[in-house]
């Protein structure tokens, strides 16, 4: 499993493209929104939590189809499916690798972008905490969508259509944590719910994803 993780990380970093693309997209969203809505600090501070979460979510969406597509094309997915390691485990590891190259950098970069969007100072900690807790869920759910569409020639748009409604609860709770944190309110409930979603999807969704991959490899 560790070998698979290292292989995926190496591929993601050395093959280029996918790794930096998400971050660049996140940056673009954070730059474009003030240009679009105007530079009033009060307005920006109000919408910053939502924009940062939506930006992170869309940046995550960009690289989803790469989770399985390359391995499907060159046949390594067939080998993974027949390997002694359960396919569910392989799916979980691949989601983890996807998170390490998209969700983790996004989380680390988010304070800088929050500065651009004038997030109130007490919100920074909760922004990082909510992204660190929530982006793994985005990767795991995304892996499910990628597993459903892996056999399709042009699955990119369909993948977004399938995955976006599944992202709704994560987005709502994640943005809620930052919003409450920025306003100096109690954040316990949405934070726990966000953690609950991440844990539940990590425990359960790999089974659905593995089932979908098996169907697609048939």
């Amino acid at each position, binding site marked *: 499993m560790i070998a698979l993780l290292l292989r995926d990380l190496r591929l993601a970093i050395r093959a280029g493209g996918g790794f930096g693309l998400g971050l660049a997209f996140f940056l673009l969203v954070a730059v474009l929104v003030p240009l679009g809505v105007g530079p009033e600090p009060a307005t920006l501070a109000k919408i910053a939590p939502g924009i940062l979460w939506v930006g992170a979510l869309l940046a995550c969406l960009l690289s989803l189809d790469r989770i399985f597509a390359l391995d499907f094309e060159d046949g390594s997915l067939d080998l993974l499916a027949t390997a002694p390691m359960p396919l569910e485990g392989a799916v979980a590891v691949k989601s983890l690798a996807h998170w390490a190259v998209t969700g983790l950098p996004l989380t680390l970069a988010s304070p800088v972008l929050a500065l651009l969007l004038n997030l109130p100072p007490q919100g920074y900690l909760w922004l990082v905490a909510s992204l660190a807790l929530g982006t793994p869920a985005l990767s795991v759910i995304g892996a499910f969508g990628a597993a459903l569409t892996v056999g399709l020639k042009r699955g990119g748009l369909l993948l977004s259509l399938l995955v976006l*409604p599944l992202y709704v609860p994560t987005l709502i709770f994640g943005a809620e944590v930052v919003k409450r944190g920025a306003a100096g309110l109690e954040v316990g409930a949405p934070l726990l719910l966000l953690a609950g*979603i991440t844990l539940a999807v990590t425990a359960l969704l790999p089974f659905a994803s593995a089932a979908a991959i098996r169907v697609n490899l048939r």
Partner: protein
Amino acid sequence: MSIWEYANPKRFMTTSAAILPWVSALTVICLATGLIWGFFFTPDDYKQGSTVKIIYLHVPAALMAINAWMMMLVTSLIWLIRRHHVSALAAKAAAPIGLTFTLVALVTGAVWGQPMWGTWWAWDPRLTSFLILGLFYLGYIALWQAIDTPDTAADLTSVLCLVGSVFALLSRYAVNFWNQGLHQGASLSLDKEENVSDVFYFPLLICIAGFVALFLTLVLLRTRTEIRARRVQALLARDRMA
């Protein structure tokens, strides 16, 4: 004699052919009675005026939009567990109907909301979760359209339906996190002493019955079409082989 005998497509076709005229007649009778009674023979509400009559379309459509997804959930489970093709085709047939009911509920709600709330749309928990339900229907239908192999498509859409059900439910409670919005609470429930006033209640019940019958008619009709389409495919394939 068990219910699984209807999983045989031929058996399903003969039975549904026998049932279909009766259900369609029931649909026409119920909808005609309910809507005419509701639209012309009930008084205007003292606060809402005649806009109250949208209830006869809005409530049944919303009810059936959710129930259609429930039916797809059950038929998807049956397909995954027992692999009866009729079941998968029924789920496929129900999805566009459910989407239509969702749209009807959203549009009638907007038409009612404009004079009553002063807005076509509000990000109220109920409205939002219905919009998300519509997105789930869209994704489900798009996945069916995108995959060429029928069995693969049936498998993948069934998995999507199961996972989607959980997330649709989760979204329903997630949006509750915002303040209770504009939408009123449930106006119909079995365990309440009084629901809406009787004068509106009885035509509404007939309309709901009519929408259930309408859904049944459309699902049977569309499932029969799907089965026939599948047969044509099989015949064409056989021709090519020969």
